[in-house]
């Protein structure tokens, strides 16, 4: 009898007992593309998918956000993310189905078109860049909303849920989404590692870098492409309207804590991943849209860092200023 009990308590069988049995079943039965990796987390399977998925999305946004913030192109990234909506809608109209990869492809194409439109307006229309961004941002958002409204009024039964691209949604996330995000993350990490010196040099001092023989438009194109990647991966989870906050806020937090780019990039990526994971989980449990929850979390961290950071924080600076004044007296 005791042998039977011991036998049923093999290590493999023990593991599920520590988790919620009901929620675990689907995960342990279907070996997804991640090969049961998600079962290793102390979470129910659906929660694990959301946490890992949003963490990867946040990681990519945090890693690539400096390309927008340090190059002073945050609003450029914002307009690109607003630009994704129309692409999602057009991809749906063309295919008539909600295949996530195809919708993302549509988002990528229209985000790239938005980027080209801004550059073209700036170059040939001789608009200042803020005006070019403003035009593209509002036109592409309008277009996206008109198309999405048209689709939802068409009575197509397939369309429900397309509007989640506006504010973001984690419900309905599946392992395949994580695989797509991981592939994007892999590309981002490799490009950043290989091009680190070039990116740093071209962003910090474009004149020196160009005279040294670098075609800086190549660096511009590559960083715009990477930004498009971050935006497209994040748009379904965080939403087109708020995506820019996930690009910017982790960078602000990390910038407060380090003075080297080589530390800022991984730090920002980790902050982004943490905000994604926690925000995704909380929004799912509280039945709130994921984007606002993730963004509120990331912004709260950024505010904390701006105020409390040891060296660059508001309080630390005020203290250092008072010390200097004291010393001067």
């Amino acid at each position, binding site marked *: 009898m005791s042998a039977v009990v011991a036998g049923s308590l093999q290590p493999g069988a023990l593991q599920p007992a520590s988790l919620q049995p009901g929620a675990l079943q689907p995960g342990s039965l279907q070996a997804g593309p991640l090969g049961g990796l998600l079962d290793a987390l102390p979470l129910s399977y659906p929660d694990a998918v959301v946490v890992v998925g949003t963490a990867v999305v946040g990681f990519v946004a945090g890693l690539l956000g400096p390309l927008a913030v340090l190059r002073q192109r945050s609003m450029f990234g914002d307009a690109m993310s607003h630009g994704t909506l129309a692409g999602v809608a057009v991809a749906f109209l063309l295919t008539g189905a909600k295949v996530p990869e195809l919708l993302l492809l549509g988002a990528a194409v229209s985000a790239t078109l938005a980027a080209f439109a801004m550059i073209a307006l700036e170059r040939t229309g001789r608009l200042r860049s803020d005006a070019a961004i403003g035009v593209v941002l509002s036109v592409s958002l309008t277009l996206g909303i008109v198309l999405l409204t048209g689709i939802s009024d068409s009575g197509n039964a397939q369309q429900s849920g397309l509007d989640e691209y506006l504010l973001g949604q984690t419900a309905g996330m599946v392992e395949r989404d994580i695989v797509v995000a991981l592939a994007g993350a892999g590309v981002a990490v490799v490009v950043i590692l290989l091009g680190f010196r070039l990116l*740093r040099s071209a962003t910090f*001092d474009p004149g*020196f870098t160009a*005279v040294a023989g670098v075609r800086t438009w190549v660096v511009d194109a590559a960083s715009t492409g990477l930004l498009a990647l971050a935006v497209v991966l994040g748009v379904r989870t965080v939403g087109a309207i708020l995506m820019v906050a996930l690009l910017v806020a982790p960078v602000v937090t990390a910038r407060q804590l380090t003075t080297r780019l080589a*530390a800022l990039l991984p730090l920002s990526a980790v902050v982004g991943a943490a905000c994604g994971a926690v925000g995704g989980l909380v929004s799912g449990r509280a039945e709130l849209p994921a984007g606002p929850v993730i963004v509120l979390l990331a912004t709260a961290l950024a505010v904390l860092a701006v105020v409390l950071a040891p060296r660059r924080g508001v309080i630390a600076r005020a203290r250092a200023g008072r010390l200097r004044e004291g010393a001067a007296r």
Partner: protein
Amino acid sequence: MTEPALRLQGMSASYGGRPVLTGVDVEIPAGVLSAVVGPNGAGKSTMVKAALGLVPSVRGTVRWLGQPLRRVRKRVAYVPQSDAVAKDFPITAVQVVEMGRYPHRGWLRRLTPGDDELVADVMAQVGVTDLADRPIDELSGGQRQRVFLARALAQRAELIVLDEPFTAVDARTEATLLEILTGLCRDGASVIAVHHDLRDVLDHFDHAVLMAGTVVAAGTPADVLTPDSLERAYGMAPLAAR
């Protein structure tokens, strides 16, 4: 015969369709400390940047050390105007100086121990050794400019081009920088600096180019900064006015 540091023939440049430079023909000799002077909007910086390929629409012939720029990139070091460099960028002083080795090492390979030694040497030469690990945005204007000159020195270039190197720089730093630049010229290098202080140019520079949309005069500072040509460039005689 040594080639001039910079030779421009029939150069014109425009920004957004508006012509900034027309018909620039000038030769700046090698081995001397040379200044490019003129009033605001005279095209001083534009001339230098256009010659370095940093301005999109440029016509005419440019020869650096007798060659097109692409053949002599390693031999020409550029120190841009301070507001052309990103503000609040996370980078330390020593990392900026190390950039001077990139034209030699490429953008992927590690720096060699020899590079590290050279970087340390030039930082000592301009007096920023103790600032090596400080973030660049915590340095004063003078300290920053020393770091950027150290980067140019680390490149071991034969020609250093500086755009307004003495703005927001304290008097002692300016004296140090001028001394180093003069020393470089004595050793056979060439220096071209965009500058706006005419008194300074008369006192310290070997050669001057006076600009006002085109070249008004070029030669020794005493020959160039005459009341006559100054009036043509500035519409008045600024030295007399002081």
